[in-house]
Structures are given as C-alpha cells and as structure tokens.
C-alpha cells in the first residue's frame, strides 16, 4: 500500500517533468550558461555547438561526481542514462558561440597560434578548434573559462575523463595558457 502510494507520488512528480520537452527543461541550464548556451557569465562555459559525445562524458562525470562542481553535481544527480544522452544531443544542436567582435592583438594572436601549433592543440581539437567526438569544441569559448580549465588540467585539480589534457599541459607555462585562451576565444 505504502509502496503504491510512493510510486504514485513519484509518478505525479515525474510525469510533468518528463512531459516537458528537453528545450523546456534546458531553461534551467540557460540560467547560468546563457540564452541558447551562449554564456555571458565569468568562468561558465558556453554550451552551444559542443560535441555530443564530449557533452555526454561531462554530464556523466558530473552525475557520478567524477568532475566536482556542486551546482552541476546537484543538477545531474537524478539524471537517467537517457537524460544524459538527451541533453548532450540537445546541447550539440544549440548554435555555436560567435567569435567576439574584438579580433585581438595581432602580435599576441600570431604568438599564440604558433604555440597552439607547437603543442598540437589543433590535432585532436582540429585546425578550426571545432573538436570531434570525445574532444570538445573550443573555438570562441569564453577566454576566462578556457584559461581556468587549462590551469585546472595542468595542476590536476580538474580530473579529465582520461589523462590526455593533464599530460599535454605539462610543458605549457601559465603565461602560455593565457595566450592560448586569448587566441582560442577569438579564433576565426
């Protein structure tokens, strides 16, 4: 009896939620990640145009607390595997972030481009930084978020899904990280 009640209560709670379309449910995401996933908030990434397999990995890691950021851990804790897939597929359909109107200081852009080539960022992330599969799109991501993420990978405070980024950032200095973020945020 009590079980039935609990089940009904759960159903009552769950059904309006699941009846919502993913676009409706995503309104919560946009509160922080910006309208249609175009972030205007410091250190919060834009989601638009992100590779679905990468987004799935991140949502999974948030749910499993393999990547620790409390608001995202809370947001995803009741997600089913299908929820993870639905949201990651949806994120990939959002418009990709536009390059900023500020084209950047040419000397710094050239220096950083050489650095990106030397460190082979453009290998996995592709020459246009659009990424592919488990490798994220970086092009025109927020500069502060790019720099923060590289710093966190380098000092192992953000655990990647695998060790690749921790490894490739070993030889990259903090000054170079700042240049790379500057360049990738403005890449055309």
């Amino acid at each position, binding site marked *: 009896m009590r079980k039935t009640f609990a089940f009904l209560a759960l159903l009552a709670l769950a059904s309006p939620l699941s009846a919502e379309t993913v676009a409706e449910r995503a309104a919560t995401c946009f509160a922080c990640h910006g309208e249609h996933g175009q972030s205007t908030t410091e250190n919060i990434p834009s989601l638009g145009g992100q590779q679905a397999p990468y987004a*799935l990995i991140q949502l999974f*890691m948030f749910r*499993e607390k393999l990547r620790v950021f409390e608001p995202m851990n809370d947001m995803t804790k009741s997600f089913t595997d299908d929820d993870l897939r639905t949201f990651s597929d949806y994120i990939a359909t959002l418009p990709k972030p536009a390059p900023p109107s500020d084209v950047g200081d040419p000397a710094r852009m050239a220096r950083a481009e050489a650095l990106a080539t030397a*460190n082979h960022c453009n*290998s996995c992330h592709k020459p246009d930084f659009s990424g592919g599969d488990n490798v994220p799109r970086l092009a025109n991501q927020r500069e502060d978020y790019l720099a923060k993420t590289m710093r966190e990978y380098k000092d192992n405070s953000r655990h990647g899904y695998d060790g690749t980024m921790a*490894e*490739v950032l070993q030889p990259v200095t903090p000054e170079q990280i700042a240049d790379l973020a500057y360049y990738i945020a403005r890449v055309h």
Partner: protein
Amino acid sequence: MTISLSASRSLLLAGAFFGAFTFAASAQQAAAPAAGAAPAAAPALPPGSPLIGRPDGEAAAKLAPVAAPPLAAAPDKLPLAKLKVPAGFNIEVYAAGMANARSLALSDKGTVFVGSRLVDKVYAITNKDGKREVKVLASGLYRPNGVAFHNGTLYIAELSKIDKIDNVDAVLDNPPKPTTIYDNLPKDEAHGWKFIAVGPDNKLYVPVGQPGNNVLHDDAHGQIRRMNLDGTGAEVYALGVRNSVGFDWNPENKQMYFTDNGRDWLSEDVPQDELNHVTKAGQDFGAPYCYQGNIPDPEFGWGHSCSDYVAPAGLMGPHTASLGMRFYTGDMFPKSYRNAIIVARHGSWNRTNKAGGDVVVVKLNKDGTVKSMEPLVTGFLQDNKYVGRPVDVMQLKDGSILVSDDWNGAVYRVSYGKAKVAAK
C-alpha cells in the same frame, strides 16, 4: 635474485619520494648507481605530451587518442555477432552493464572482479547456480584499473594507491570501504593507471609508467615495483618500462613476462609494443633510450646503445596497445595452447590503419622468446573503427577464458568444444 641491486633501488626510490632527486636521469642509465649519489635537483619533467613528436602533415593530424563511451552498452547492443573465434571455439557474453570494464581477477569461489579506469568503480560478477549477477563492489575510487585476488583478499590498484578488501567473497553484499595499504606512488595521470598481480613470491607487483609519451623519467617512474602483501618493503623490480598494463608468470619457470606499450609518433609501423621476459630483478628494458630492442630513440637514444638493455622476447605489433596477458594453464583449449600467453590488444589510435583490437595467442620457444602469434578473438575493429576494445583476459577454472571490453562495459567468455554455456 639480485637482492642487493633491488635494495639499492629501493633506497633510491625512497630518496626520490623525499625529494632528494627530482630528475635522476643519470642514475637511471647507470648499471648499479650508488645510493645517495643524487644529481642536483632539476626543474620539472621535460615535455611529456602524447602529441609532441607528431610530425606535421594532414595524415598525422587526423590521429587522436580514442576514449571509450562512459555508459555501458545494453546487452542487446553488444557486438557479439561481429566477434570471431577460430573453428571449434565459442564466444558468449559472460556479463554486461559494467561501464568501462578493465582488468579482471578471479576468486577461488568463482567471483570475477572487474576494475575500471574512466569511472570510479570495481565490480563483482557473482556466479550462483549458473545465475550471474553484477554488483558494484566499490565506488569513489580513483582510476581503479587493477584488481588481483590472493588468499581471500582482493587487491585494487588505483592511480596512486593500492587498496585491499579482506575476505572479499564474504562481504560482497555489504562491502566495506577498501583499506589503503600503499600510497607512495606518483600521481601523474599519464600512464598512471595500474595493472596489479601477485607473483609466485607472494608479492604484489604494480607498474609505474613513464609520465608521458616519450620522457626522460625520474627514479619514481618507468618501472615495475613489487612489495609485500601489506604494502611494506617496496622495491623496484624492473626498469626502463614505458607503460605496462599486463603481466603474468610463466608456470614452468616462474619468470615474469610483461607487455609494454611502445612510444607514439615515431612512425606508423615502429616501434612495436614489446612482450618482455624478466629473468632477474633489476633488469632494464630500455625506455626511453631504446624501443623494441633495436630502435634507439631519436631524441633520448644519443649516447646509449640498445645492447645495454634487455631486448623484448617478442614484438606485439605497432601501437597495438598490448595490455592484459595471462599464461594459459587450462585443459579446455587444444594442447598447443598450454602455457601459451593470451594477450588482449586494446588497439591503436596512433596509426592511420588501426592495428590490434583483438585477443591473440603467443606461443614461446624453449629459450623463452616468441615463436608465434595467432588471433583468438577478432572483430572488435570494423572498418577502422572500434565496436569494442579488449583490455584483459582471465582463465576460469574450467579452462575457458574471459575477455573484458572497456568500450562496451562487458566481459565475454571464450570456450572450446561443445560446451557453449559457462559451467556453474
């Protein structure tokens, strides 16, 4: 046994942890360095990126490491129909639903333990009256890739520590948090995940890989260590090890064989992964100075000769990621398989036409070198894409072989003859 050498190595090792050396490359290359002869502390490790060394050019730029999906495939989505075994052999799904299933261990009661690398869990596959069930035995671990079972205890190798659960078969339904027995390990992500096994000397063996594709590592890396079952008495057992994710001991002479992954970006076809044969403690297998026994590294090989290092017993193919391996001691497979090594080759990423992605049988000559290598399970690689990736193998009591697949989060069973279904 060269106890004195390994003892001096363990002194060196202790030294490294207390910061006496951050970069003892010269100690690494000397045959028997004097303990305490530390070179001046040097800056951080040199570049260790998997992409440094990549030649320019479009073809090379297309290659990138492949990551397994984070969710286990549903049982009906497993690629079983695509997997091929030789005539007379059968393959079936043993268990599924274990995201990122990696290394395997078997208890004396028939429980199969499964580690993971990209998630935080160790699973247990119980087997009661022919009914198998998957349980999460431990979670919240950090890259618990390695599992080993010995005298009732399960040993778990995380990225930078070793844990145990005593009497594990008695606590499957209510497992305690694993107890850490050893954590004097580097925390590098690169090649930091670990295989683990208990040797015939009742010691735990774990690899500590080089912290990058091709780096001049310090004295805490590029090796296989061994220690007592309680984590005491750690010492370096083998040197010049780039990234080993599998080893076992020859049942005939109790000597260790280990797989070692060759470096990336040298070329499409070399170096090949190594199958190495350890005949005594303290041997050096060459990384990063010499690969596959005869290729001096273009960057670090200057001033070194491949003849200074132990050459591999055999080569396992270029970039094939030869990982878990076990000697076959069962009666089920044909006689020619007896004491052969069964190796899981996870499959390449650093190669235009992917290689590996299969399970092979390696037969040895009397002198311990490799005589032949034949496929046992193929089909994980379809049209140059993975539909599955084998990580480890484990022999069941009936002589059949389990194969883990981290791409799908599943374990398969390979049997020979009419019996298609796992006994008990």
